[in-house]
């Protein structure tokens, strides 16, 4: 008897009830933290290689800050509109959520278009990823962030279909919360990109 008590004390013998999706948000947060490590590696690579121009063009020749400022504004607006979508979700208004999600998608698409416009100009000017270590690490870091935004947009489109078909079910709310974390996380990464890549590149 005494042994059984001890066992029960040290080992969790009771089966707990695990509500559906109860650990999704924590799990998604852990995913974001591992994603953060990927970006840390890319930032470190850029930090080490960012000064090796191989006699090619440097940040001062290539970066256009007004364009970057516009891009930053687009991503910040999209974070704000996603926040409005979350508030509508809290109020249980599916139409409001859909409206603000569409606005978020438009700002996200604007961000991507501006980024692709910038990339195409760089490549047209001969500043391709193969040109120097600086450009390789630049395209890898900024391109990985852009790829994340692209997948965020695909996810957003999928959720709009889900919302139209099933409304604000518990599962859909959970998915919206995960995408909310993902989207705001990308905005946090962008703070690092515009500060350490673009602004400090001009100062270099």
């Amino acid at each position, binding site marked *: 008897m005494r042994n059984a008590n001890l066992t029960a004390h040290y080992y969790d013998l009771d089966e707990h009830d695990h509500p559906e999706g109860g650990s999704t948000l924590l799990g998604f947060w852990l995913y974001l933290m591992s994603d953060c490590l990927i970006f840390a590696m890319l930032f*470190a690579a850029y930090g080490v290689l960012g000064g090796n121009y191989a006699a090619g063009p440097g940040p001062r020749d290539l970066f256009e800050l007004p364009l970057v400022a516009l891009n930053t*504004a687009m991503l*910040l607006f999209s974070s704000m509109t996603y926040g409005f979508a979350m508030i509508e979700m809290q109020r249980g208004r599916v139409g409001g959520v859909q409206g603000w999600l569409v606005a978020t998608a438009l700002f996200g698409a604007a961000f991507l278009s501006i980024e692709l416009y910038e990339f195409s100009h760089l490549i047209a000017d001969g500043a391709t990823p193969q040109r120097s270590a600086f450009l390789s690490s630049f395209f890898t870091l900024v391109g990985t962030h852009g790829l994340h935004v692209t997948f965020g947009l695909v996810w957003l489109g999928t959720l709009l279909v889900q919302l139209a078909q099933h409304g604000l079910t518990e599962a859909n709310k959970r998915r919206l919360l995960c995408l909310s974390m993902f989207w705001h996380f990308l905005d946090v990464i962008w703070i690092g990109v515009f500060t350490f890549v673009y602004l400090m590149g001009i100062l270099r």
Partner: protein
Amino acid sequence: MSNSHADVPHFSLTDYRTGFFASVVLTAIPFWLVMSGVLANNTLTALVIAGFAVVQVFVHMIYFLHMNTKSEGGWNFLALVFTVIVVGIVLSGSLWVMHHLNQNMMPMPHNMNELP
């Protein structure tokens, strides 16, 4: 049974508004500093804009990601602290080691054909 959504943050318009306007200010000032070149010293400007970036990351974490030390029984925060430590080691270690390696390298011309 406890509510499975106890850890879902409460979204308030005030939080988002505060975060948004703080972010606008914290973004605009670094861009202005670099584009106008108000501070003559580049190193000083770099330090100031790095400071603004750190503050803005905090603003986003608190007002947009609703980060606090208690959500999910503290596990969110613990994972964040662990990540920040690893990121700090990766960044400072890479830059430190590679900077010294660069200093110890023999100066080389950009064009390998110019080698003696």
